[in-house]
């Protein structure tokens, strides 16, 4: 690990990407992720062969990512909710063509133009597809600035390992907040794995082709089955979560990202009142840590899900746990960030 620095979330994500060997970044300005783009504009040209390009549109940016990722180089784009909606075409194509790339979503309020406040309304979009066709993104949800840097760094490793797009799903709170970050040491590009599939000029070999197109039904069926079996491997190997105080809690609180962090404050407040709140924080939203959640839920009567949306992850929670367990939901919307004491009020309804 490298030195410790006070950094804004957006900047920490950008710098972590550069240190992970990302040399191609394409994006379009949008609040609240603008500092990420600005950091890249400043620092990507300092890298040897570093490409920063402000694209004509979100669709242009994700298509440039598709092109650059086809050459096998580490590649990223970032945006916020409305911009991520525009990128869905390209994300489906990246997944269908099995191209590694990292997409950062610093979520804001929606639907439509919404506002520029922190929100978690894009959980469905990130974890259930978003674009057309049967595909999955690996979705990583940091709850702090240091974790955002760490997961961004790791996102590139996962993308390469599985030839799959990876989304870092944070929100305006994490993007804008400043915290001390210990940045990872920069990777040596020479150490990155070779990509024999990349379109880099055929130069003595058979031509490489990057596509998501197969006209015959049997052919596409077999491609899709291979994708699904890859997703099964990812489920088995890459499910991540954090759990606190889950030995014998009075209630289990499930929250991701910013709310996962706030939940820890709720746990402290609750302890003063003699209530033991266990916390389960999914770090991979896809694959969702369903097995572990199912185990933990056996210890409690109530699994309370808290999100900054109208109830999205709670559907995965309900799919994970037995139907005799109470699974209430508490959410705030429109950019309202739930207060730890407000969450405690919800907790008290069930213990």
């Amino acid at each position, binding site marked *: 690990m490298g030195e410790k620095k006070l950094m804004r979330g957006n900047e920490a994500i950008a710098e972590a990407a550069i240190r992970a060997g990302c040399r191609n970044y394409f994006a379009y300005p949008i609040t609240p992720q603008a500092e990420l783009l600005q950091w890249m504009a400043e620092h990507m040209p300092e890298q040897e062969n570093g490409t920063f390009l402000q694209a004509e549109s979100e669709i242009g940016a994700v298509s440039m990512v598709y092109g650059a990722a086809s*050459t096998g180089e580490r590649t990223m784009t970032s945006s916020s909710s409305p911009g991520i909606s525009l990128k869905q075409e390209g994300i489906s194509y990246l997944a269908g063509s099995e191209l590694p790339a990292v997409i950062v979503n610093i979520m804001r309020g929606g639907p439509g133009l919404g506002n520029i406040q922190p929100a978690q309304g894009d959980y469905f979009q990130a974890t259930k597809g978003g674009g057309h066709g049967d595909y999955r993104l690996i979705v990583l949800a940091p709850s702090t600035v240091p974790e955002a840097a760490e997961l961004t760094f790791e996102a590139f490793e996962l993308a390469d390992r599985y030839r799959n797009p990876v989304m870092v799903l944070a929100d305006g709170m994490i993007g804008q907040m400043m915290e001390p970050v210990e940045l990872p040491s920069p990777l040596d590009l020479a150490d990155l794995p070779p990509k024999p599939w990349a379109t*880099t000029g055929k130069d003595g070999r058979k031509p490489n082709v990057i*596509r998501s197109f197969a006209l015959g039904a049997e052919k596409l069926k077999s491609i899709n089955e291979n994708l699904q079996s890859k997703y099964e491997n990812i489920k088995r190997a890459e499910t991540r979560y954090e759990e606190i105080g889950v030995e014998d809690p009075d209630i289990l609180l499930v929250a991701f990202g910013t709310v996962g962090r706030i939940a820890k404050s709720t746990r402290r407040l609750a302890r003063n009142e003699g209530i033991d709140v266990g916390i389960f924080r999914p770090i991979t939203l896809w694959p969702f840590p369903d097995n572990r959640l199912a185990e933990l839920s056996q210890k409690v009567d109530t699994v309370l899900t808290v999100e900054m949306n109208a109830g999205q992850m709670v559907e995965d929670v309900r799919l994970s746990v037995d139907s005799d367990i109470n699974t209430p939901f508490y959410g705030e919307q429109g950019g309202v960030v739930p207060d730890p004491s407000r969450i405690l009020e919800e907790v008290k309804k069930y213990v």
Partner: protein
Amino acid sequence: MSEEAVAENTAELKKVFDRPKSLNDEKFSYCPGCHHGVINRLIAEVIDELGIQDSTVGTAPVGCSVFLYKWFDVDVIQPAHGRVSAVATGVKRARPDLTVFAYQGDGDFASIGTNNSTHAANRGENITTFFINNTLYGMTGGEMAPTTLLGQKTTTSPHGRSARDYGYPIKMSEMLAALDGPTYITRQAVYDAKRIDNAKAAIKKAFRYQMEDEGYSLVEFLSACPINWGMDPVEANERIKEEVEEVYPLGDIIERS
């Protein structure tokens, strides 16, 4: 002829026509009289002649030429409809040492991808773009395109394209020539030997500009689609000469290097 004479003549025989190395043995699936095949071949010949087969990456559109990856013996990327210019940009920015061409139809380049194609041209991206203008959507069933001529009947303009409803045939090459970014923009046709020669020279020039790091080149081709035009191949060639060239005149539009 004596045996000696035959032997002598045969020794002097040279193979003067063959498939370019940059095409493989797969048969084109283009319709009879379509110009895509001629244009594909010319591009492959030029890649051979410039000796860049090993360092070329092609980006293919969605449409009749979606199968470029089957026919070209070079690395090929087959992205989303309309995004070819942006994808080619990504490849070239990541790997400036590669020679990158974007092959786009009129739906791709002049309709759904106009934003991407216009900005690639305006940035002067160092790529070579081939824009195949056959005045309609060939693969999906002959629908009207922004390039469709006034009065032209298509499956979505069964009474003929009217300016009142759909405006006028879009002149992408002239539009992009108004920008300061592009280096070379030309409009070509391939319906006879002379024009094929001219077109090939334009393709070569467009690749050379990229290899010399001179920036964005665009070669527009007026291309025949006899099936969707309801014509035989000879009539389709005549139509280009008599009608299409009236709206889209051939020749270099800009050349700045």
